């Protein structure tokens, strides 16, 4: 059975390699499709044992969370957990160091996996049930406080020149207003999707996917296509110019951010990364990039791990919810299976990081960057259409419109997370339905 599980992990990780390089595709969508496939197989009498599909699913999530750095850095097409890596990542790319940037984030991912398996895992069964017991009635206000923080800590980028007065104030507030407007708009969009889901019921598990793709992945691809950035010659360095102390600092910052995001509902890797970045006040770009790599992996793999922690069995993140439809963990054996799968998938995907990045850079050398962006955009649109149809495309276009606001005005792209944060925070505080009724959605 161990061999079967190991092979399953490897299969999941191998598939994740391919999927991660595709921009805009979220692994949870693939997991949803995998669940449908398992149901179909079971309905025709084929026995699919948990020891087969659990490691496969974990391999998918872990592999993807490590390797989706590649499109985020090289193509500027992130998911919401990687939004903070785009700008610094592109800076590396534009100075010929795209490989280095991606690998620094990759190193962060490896640190994240180390933190999960060797530091969090031994203590999780003892301490996390305590934390859950204490925090349970307080999740809603924690979410509201996070929303408040996101909205209150955006820095005004304009208003640095000219005489004092209203014009200067207006210039400064153009980015802040755009940020607040984005948050409110995406929040309303979230209400709409939550209370009047336009996606066909058969594809309900993909309900949010077109919106997310529109909000986060399409805008950068679109800008790449329209602005046609010329990517300079890329250099592959033998060393990453980092040391143990930078790894330690990046690990702590990202570990806390990702851990926070994994433990608290609706808080995503992007939000966790933001909080960790502020709390640890790191100025070094390498530490920042590394911490984002840590945060991303701890968020995705950690949320999945929490589902298997004995005495906790916490369902956080899309991956855990999807697996919950198939299987409910019960024993320490399940926990060890999950940890082993995480370790194996993590190690393998990190080893694949370098060759895949080099392959992508080679492709970028041969093919015009704008053409790659067009192809990426085409793949994204095709995926959305194939999974959710024409209505999904429409949702994606609306999402893109909102997602372009922060890109064009220079405000925080994280404000697009209003799509989740606002409706769910309102629901958790019991205000969701009255607001939905006020909006005419009930």
């Amino acid at each position: 059975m161990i061999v079967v599980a190991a092979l399953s992990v490897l299969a999941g990780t191998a598939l994740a390699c391919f999927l991660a390089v595709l921009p805009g595709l979220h692994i949870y969508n693939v997991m949803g499709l995998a669940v449908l496939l398992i149901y179909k197989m079971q309905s025709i009498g084929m026995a699919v044992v948990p020891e087969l599909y659990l490691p496969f699913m974990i391999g998918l999530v872990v592999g993807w969370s490590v390797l989706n750095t590649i499109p985020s850095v090289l193509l500027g097409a992130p998911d919401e957990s990687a939004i903070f890596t785009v700008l610094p990542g592109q800076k590396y790319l534009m100075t010929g160091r795209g490989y280095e940037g991606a690998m620094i984030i990759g190193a962060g991912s490896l640190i994240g996996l180390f933190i999960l398996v060797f530091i969090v895992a031994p203590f999780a069964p003892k301490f996390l049930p305590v934390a859950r017991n204490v925090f349970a009635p307080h999740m809603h206000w924690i979410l509201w406080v996070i929303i408040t923080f996101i909205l209150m800590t955006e820095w005004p980028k304009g208003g640095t020149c000219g005489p004092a007065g209203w014009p200067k104030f207006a210039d400064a507030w153009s980015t802040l207003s755009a940020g607040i407007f984005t948050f409110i708009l995406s929040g309303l969009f979230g209400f709409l999707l939550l209370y009047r889901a336009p996606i066909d019921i058969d594809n309900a598990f993909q309900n949010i996917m077109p919106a997310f793709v529109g909000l986060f992945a399409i805008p950068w691809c679109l800008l790449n296509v329209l602005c046609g950035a010329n990517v300079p010659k890329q250099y592959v360095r033998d060393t990453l110019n980092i040391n143990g102390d930078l790894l330690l600092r990046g690990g702590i910052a990202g570990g806390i951010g990702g851990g926070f995001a994994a433990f608290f509902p609706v808080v995503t890797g992007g939000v966790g990364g933001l909080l960790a970045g502020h709390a640890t006040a790191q100025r070094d770009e390498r530490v920042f990039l590394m911490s984002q790599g840590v945060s991303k992996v701890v968020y995705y793999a950690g949320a999945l791990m929490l589902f298997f922690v004995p005495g906790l069995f916490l369902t956080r993140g899309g991956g855990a919810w999807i697996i919950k439809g198939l299987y409910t963990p019960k024993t320490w054996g399940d926990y060890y299976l999950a940890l082993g799968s995480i370790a194996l998938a993590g190690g393998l995907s990190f080893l694949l990081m370098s060759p895949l990045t080099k392959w992508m850079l080679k492709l970028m050398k041969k093919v015009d960057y704008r053409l790659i962006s067009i192809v990426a955009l085409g793949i994204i649109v095709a995926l959305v259409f194939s999974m959710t149809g024409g209505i999904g495309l429409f949702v994606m276009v609306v999402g893109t419109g909102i997602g372009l606001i922060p890109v064009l005005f220079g405000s925080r792209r994280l404000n697009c997370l209003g799509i989740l944060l606002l409706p769910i925070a309102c629901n958790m505080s019991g205000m969701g339905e009255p607001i939905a009724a006020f909006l005419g959605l009930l």
Partner: protein
Amino acid sequence: MKGIAHFISGVTVASFCPWAVETAQNGNPAYFILGAVAGILPDTVDFKFYRFFYSHDIQIEPHPDQLDPQPVADAVAKAVLLAAEGRRTTLKLATIKMDADNWRQYRVRIDPEAGEVRVQFGPIVSTGQVPQPDSLPEPRSVGVAKFNAPILQSCETTYTVDIFDGPSFAFQRNEAGEVDVDFLPWHRNWSHSLTVGLALAGMASIWTWKAGVVIAGAYMVHVIEDQMGHMGSNILFPFTKKRLPGFKMMHSGDAFPNFVGVWFCCLLIFWNIYMAVENPLYHFGFIRLMMYAMVIPFAVFGVLHQLLVRIDGSEPETQTTEWNI
């Protein structure tokens, strides 16, 4: 301290109020949001409102393509001399934005002993203040302007101007005849006073005294935290006109104190909401919580940090800039 430290301090203050925790348990987050907002409000007022309406007598806006340091040095020296003659003079050094994420860095040194201002332009830096390779201007001349006035320097002598908004100064002659250099005169002034905090709390008390207590506590904690730094605050505005110098225990941007502060606040919040759990499944004391969640992890971090620094022997290469001022 940094924004997040003030913000979480405000939330911590709210968590010490039993009514805030009780109300939150019943689904109403209002007191915690109030605490968070009041905790960061003094900085919000300064950085997002007041500074855009604060006018300067002299405003220096170097052109990105004409990097002559001499006019900058002359303007700073002029501000000092005007103040020495008895006229309070405010000065603003604008940043030089190159593109969405790059800025031209420059440094200004006001040297009281030499009686001169020295200015030099440096590299292009990212918003993370990381210098870009091969971006130093050629030639890198130093602008020097003399002034003949005694200076009382309460903060630094060298100011680096790079990202977002540049620094501003108020030069004013004091009773001793020295020119007092007031760094960021619009910051930590009236907004960072206990009296304003109390006034806001009074207004909130019209709704409920409980909100007033949360706001007063969170606002005051912000002022007290800032007092740990260098600049200090105008504690009792309008009864006091100037900032009370800080205790100089830390710099506001220092990573470690900020992180310790944030983490300690998180643990206090955890403890306060744990105390409100009626029948907790688990029992532990405050000391045990602090040992497990703060003392031991920080000790491990300290040991690891020392070890890694020793093992590595040297720092990884970073772009550094030579300054000649």
